[in-house]
């Protein structure tokens, strides 16, 4: 059955599968599309996916669960958009998301994606954990509820519910307290930011989340937001203005950078480590913020910052985007992007792999265990490294 209303019907045929989308910007490796790196089949590369979607749109192939998995294995990392030489490159990820949207409307999506979206519909988070438990991460921290402070600290689903994410959320809260930042959180009243919901193709659910969040923030008088996750940062900075939600949004690494340079945060305690930094896609390629996290790390005495071969706009995605930190269509192999990425980090000789995203944190930490590199490489969030330099445990 052909897809009648597919938005990109008139442009999707322009991809002639040159294959540039599989490479990083320095052309050193053909495996920079995370799904292609995992499966090593053309159908899983950006170009292959576009051709498949085009065939489906034209009624040349039928929907199948395998086809849906290929489409949903796109992590929306934007490496393809970075590398594609054609003018339509600005819409490549949108073309895949539009195919997902069509599947969402037909109800035909991979079971794990269905579970993700139903959990968000019901409980406001992909794990399906109770809304009543969203604020448990902050117990004992003394972090206040938001009531007109300068910043709303928006934690997000991974920071609120994932045990590892919660640890980072707490450390960042303590760092902000230490710097004397006036901030508050929403606790159980926080809801999903919707970034992954949108990339899974559930546009109406995303719109509802954005509208509800904007209304809630406005009713509380929120003007400035600092986010733990680059995914929340992306949605609130780029998408919420379309819902009448023009807030001053910062990713926490940007706030920490200014707190350190203003002398409000004392990191002179230092950390002795050789650190390599992994760029999260939604901070890097999606929002072109490559320097704030690096500047934070460089400002800490004792840290030697070294780069992986693929970095900044050429970084390999951890494989967790597009909801894949939960729906997990790219796991289970030594070719999984997270495992490739930790091997690359290990090759630099670094003993710490720094991240600035709770999704990357969980993906890469699991990969370090799978690669049995626990004794050689530790994955830490930039917030945690700053915490150590400030004497926070």
């Amino acid at each position: 059955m052909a897809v009648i209303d597919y938005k990109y019907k008139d442009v999707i045929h322009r991809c002639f599968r040159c294959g540039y989308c599989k490479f990083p910007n320095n052309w050193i490796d053909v495996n920079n599309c995370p799904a292609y790196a995992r499966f090593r089949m053309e159908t899983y590369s950006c170009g292959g996916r576009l051709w498949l979607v085009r065939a489906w749109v034209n009624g040349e192939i039928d929907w199948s669960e395998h086809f849906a998995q290929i489409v949903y294995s796109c992590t929306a990392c934007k490496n393809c958009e970075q590398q594609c030489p054609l003018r339509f490159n600005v819409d490549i990820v949108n073309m895949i998301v539009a195919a997902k949207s069509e599947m969402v409307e037909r109800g035909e999506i991979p079971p794990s994606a269905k579970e993700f979206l139903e959990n968000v519909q019901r409980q406001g988070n992909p794990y399906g954990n109770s809304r009543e438990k969203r604020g448990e991460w902050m117990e004992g921290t003394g972090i206040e509820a938001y009531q007109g402070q300068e910043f709303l600290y928006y934690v997000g689903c991974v920071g609120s519910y994932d045990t590892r994410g919660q640890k980072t959320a707490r450390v960042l809260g303590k760092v902000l307290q230490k710097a004397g930042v006036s901030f508050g959180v929403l606790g159980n009243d926080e809801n999903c930011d919707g970034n992954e919901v949108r990339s899974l193709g559930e546009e109406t659910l995303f719109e509802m989340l954005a509208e509800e969040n904007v209304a809630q923030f406005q009713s509380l008088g929120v003007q400035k937001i600092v986010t733990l996750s680059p995914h929340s940062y992306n949605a609130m900075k780029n998408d919420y203005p379309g819902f009448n939600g023009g807030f001053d949004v910062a990713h926490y690494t940007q706030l920490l950078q200014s707190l350190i340079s203003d002398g409000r945060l004392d990191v002179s305690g230092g950390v002795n480590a050789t650190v390599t930094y992994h760029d999260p896609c939604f901070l890097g390629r999606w929002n072109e913020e490559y320097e704030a996290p690096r500047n934070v790390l460089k400002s800490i005495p004792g840290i030697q910052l070294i780069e992986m071969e693929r970095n900044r706009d050429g970084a390999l995605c951890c494989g967790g985007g597009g909801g894949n930190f939960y729906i997990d269509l790219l796991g289970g192999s030594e070719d999984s992007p997270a495992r490739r990425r930790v091997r690359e980090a290990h090759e630099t000789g670094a003993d710490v792999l720094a991240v600035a995203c709770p999704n990357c944190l969980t993906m890469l930490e699991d990969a370090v265990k799978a690669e049995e590199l626990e004794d050689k490489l530790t994955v830490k969030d930039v917030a945690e490294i700053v915490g150590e330099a400030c004497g926070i445990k």
Partner: protein
Amino acid sequence: MDIVACIKRVPDTSEVDVIKIDASQKDIEKDRLVFKINDWDEYVLEEAVQLREKLGGTLTAVTVGHNDWDDVLRRALAMGADTGIRIDQDVSAEDTHVVAKILKTVIQQIPHDLVLFGAQSEDFGSGQLGAMVAEMLDIPHATLVVGLEAEEKRVRVNRELEAGTLESYTIELPALLTIHTGINQPRYISLGGIKRAMKKELQVMSLSDLQLSPDALNPMVRLEKLELPPKGEGAELITGAPGEAAEQLTKILKDTGIF
């Protein structure tokens, strides 16, 4: 083929520690709970929609409850049901017999070749309702159905027995089946689909519309008390770092002779 699908709204109990018994000790505190369609009933709707797509006819979704319960009917309409009927009566404190009487009266008024129920509900889980309604309607039934092939006048069903044994029957229509999970893969219901279904009309009926008097419902079982299970003895909660916890668990498994 005309199909009637009976569905229920239940609390999301995926995290049981949020369930609290209320002061009456006959119900749970519902204020902060999130509700959803009964898990088994999702499979009912998927099976019904697939049969309707294949064989034509009508699909009517029925539920019994106050207006909060409209949301499960909206899901049914979004999935492909033609009509949603809600009997406006709170039966959460009633026994299965009362609900069966109400549903039997409704179903008698709707064209039905096949009546589908979930095998059980997630909250009370008696598993009796479908069979009871079938008896009241005086039509054949099969419970725990995990496979279904339908023709114009009969259905062939597989029932799941112990250890995965399958029992097959051919049943003449009209008939009632209670559907087990795993019979199909329920489709995702998008929020857009639910919003579009908001425009479809729901039929709301009262007991008096059905010419049923509340006094004539005759509950046969009365709920005396609801309580959470007491903390059992003999359960050991292993704490500590993952490595130490794994060591402790290994020791227990070895000491008890399991490994």
